């Protein structure tokens, strides 16, 4: 053992930024780039707006983070569709009335959780690969949506929901951002300070060892999919509060970005390593990037290419840092 006085400075030298710090730096760099090409991009109102857009992705990606950490190819492709379905159920049941807000949200979340339960049972008991199971679930939920709406969405957000999401609280920040913060803290607590969270990481890191340590592996996995769908449903409700009325593909486009946000946040697709703070930063990176591309008037193919390139650059950076650290 060497003297502790020697240890401190060396440790600082040995410190290398982790994925979260790197992704955060990228987000800041993108904002600065935006301000340079288009002055006003980094204005207060603009930034608040970007954060608001990021919030929906951020909430959907909570569940995605949980499922990906569980490992074994865990992924939930049905989150976008489930969010859409929850918004559709919610808007129809509350139908613009504050009095029906609570039952509407409860029902929407219950249906979402049930869909997650089916995903979880399929993945564990029937051993269907998560990719296949949740991809198939997209079709099933789409069918349910058509059966439920007859092809035309109806209903409206309750005013209370709208003001909860859009109303300005302090510093002119919308309520949505505080809700995201709250849900984000809940996610971090769930992953880092509960038996469920530690079991989840264990299952993701080494499933055999988890089993032999007495972890109820299947129960943990099923719960992961239930939580994923429930957070997706919640994001759908928040989206409903924002848009006030729904369309049949309201949240569908969040499917791949939710996975991308998790990966950019440094969570390993192989499972067992990661966390929600990174995912939240990942959601912000993707949203700022998308805002920047809109400002630059780059659409379609160009957008896809740039998104892909940013993802690849970040992932190769993470890989490099991991090697350097070990």
């Amino acid at each position, binding site marked *: 053992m*060497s003297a502790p006085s020697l240890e401190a400075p060396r440790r600082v030298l040995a410190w290398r930024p982790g994925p979260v710090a790197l992704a955060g730096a990228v987000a800041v760099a993108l904002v600065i780039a935006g301000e340079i090409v288009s002055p006003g991009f980094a204005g207060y109102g603009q930034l608040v707006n970007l954060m608001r857009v990021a919030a929906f992705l951020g909430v959907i990606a909570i569940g995605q983070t949980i499922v990906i950490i569980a490992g074994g190819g865990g992924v939930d492709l049905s989150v976008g569709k489930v969010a859409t379905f929850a918004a559709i159920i919610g808007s129809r049941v509350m139908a613009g009335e504050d009095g029906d807000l609570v039952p509407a949200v409860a029902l929407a979340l219950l249906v979402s959780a049930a869909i997650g339960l089916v995903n979880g049972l399929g993945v564990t008991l029937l051993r269907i690969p998560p990719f296949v199971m949740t991809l198939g679930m997209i079709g099933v939920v789409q069918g349910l949506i058509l059966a439920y709406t007859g092809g035309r969405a109806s209903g409206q957000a309750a005013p209370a929901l709208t003001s909860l999401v859009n109303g300005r609280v302090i510093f002119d920040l919308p309520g949505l951002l505080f809700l995201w913060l709250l849900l984000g803290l809940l996610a971090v607590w769930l992953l880092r300070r*509960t*038996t469920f969270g*530690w079991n989840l*990481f264990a299952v993701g890191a*080494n499933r055999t*060892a988890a089993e*032999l340590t007495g972890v109820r592996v299947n129960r943990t996995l099923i719960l992961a999919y239930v939580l994923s769908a429930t957070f997706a449903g919640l994001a759908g409700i928040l989206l409903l509060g924002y848009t006030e009325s729904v369309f049949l593909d309201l949240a569908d486009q969040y499917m791949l970005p939710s996975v991308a946000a998790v990966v950019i946040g440094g969570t390993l697709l192989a499972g*067992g390593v990661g966390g929600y703070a990174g995912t939240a930063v990942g959601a912000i990176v993707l949203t700022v990037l998308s805002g920047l591309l809109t400002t630059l008037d780059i659409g379609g193919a160009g957008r896809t290419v740039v998104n892909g390139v940013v993802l690849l650059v970040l992932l190769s950076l993470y890989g490099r840092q991991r090697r350097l650290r070990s």
Partner: protein
Amino acid sequence: MSPLLEMTGVRKRYGGVQALDGAALTAVRGEVHALLGPNGSGKSTLDKTLAGTVVPDSGEIRIDGAAARIGGPRDAHALGVAAVYQQLSIVGDLTVTQNVVLGLEPARRWGFLDHRAARARAAAALDRFAAAFPGGLPLDRPAGSLGPGEQQIVEVAKALARGPRILVLDEATASLHKEQVAVLFDVVRELRASGVLVVFTSHRLDEVFALCDRATVLRNGRTVGTVELAATDEAELVRLMVGDAPRRSGAPAAAARPSPSAGAAATLEVRGLTTERLRDVGFTVRAGEVLGLGGLQGQGQSELLLALFGAARVTAGEALLDGRPLPLTSPAGAARAGVALVPGDRGRQGMFAARPIQENLSLASMHRRARLRLALGAAAERRAARSMVERLGIKIGSLADPVSTLSGGNQQKVVIGKWLLDRPRVVLLDDPTKGVDVAAKEEIYAIVRGLADDGVVVILNSSDNRELTELSDRVLVLFEGAVAEELSAAAITEKRLVAGALRLTPGESP
């Protein structure tokens, strides 16, 4: 004779841990040189700097008198150094031959790689170990289908196929049966006779005395001495390794012992237990008894422990703990009923390499400390983990470090420690001291006896007969999945164990 290998002033730091702090090693041609020291003292790290997989922060290596610059495994290979690491590097999907050939640079003929020559070299290297494969050399079988001991032998053959002048064996015997060890030793002796230097690391001192000529001892990354083994006894060697520091297993450790578990004094009764690899196994273990499992390894000992933990498919039979049936259908159920298993393969079955030491230690018992079985208190978890780190003398930097950064023996202590926190009523141990240093072995033995004294049922499988004789009150000798013989306290001697194991397999000799 001028030394073949001279390593001096080797330093290597990982984050907050000084793994090597000026280590030195000098050894000559035609010698088997033991590299010894407690867990985490830097043996594997020193081996790796020699083999080029770790680049030291500073230090000098001279081979055959000339300064050697080893920047990577290729340099080491070119200098005639081959190493077998503590962690297996076998690729399970490739055949045994392919594994041995892997990374060998085969001769070139007219510009083409000569695969046939490489195959021949692989076969020749494996052939030296023919006696360790009673069923014939498994040249074309996937390496993943071999037992852990056989894989280890393949690993050694892989190093030999490179025709090294310096061969490094880092705990190569930890997963070998007695018979396989004997084969390996014969090969090592042949190598010594042909002038090869073998650097040999093991925590089994009887092996060290049987095989090695000299020993260099490391402590905290520093070389504390080199001794002639012929002129040294075991006590002296242990003193060199452990130092004059007061022993850990003194009074404080005993005080830290958990109080007898609730409903202590259990009796475990197993009747007609049958699985794919077990035939009608029955026995009774009384509270406070340590039951050993003996016989040739691979006769169903590990399977029996897994079955009692609900991790093997039981087709018939039952186990009663104090007259109440144990759930044999799921490990989670077994764990809740108070059964603990320290499995035989720590990398695959015991630890979560990428997760922090904290979580690895907490996992089995955290539900007891959690509020509403859900909310964990950071301080309580840390306290629990720290208590184990101290009790077992686990050498760590910080509880937040991934368990994969620990030395092999310290990883094993983590795997044992997680169950000791759970206050189990039945403890199943599958080779629990694999790769663990002398001091910690004593500590673990004391803990096992302490558990038994507290009324816990202990079943111990060990590939180390010395461990069985020292700890067991009774030993069941298993053969082909069935109980072949029962030895009681007075009858348990190493000789009897060997005889018991062998008499049952006529036609085979060690």
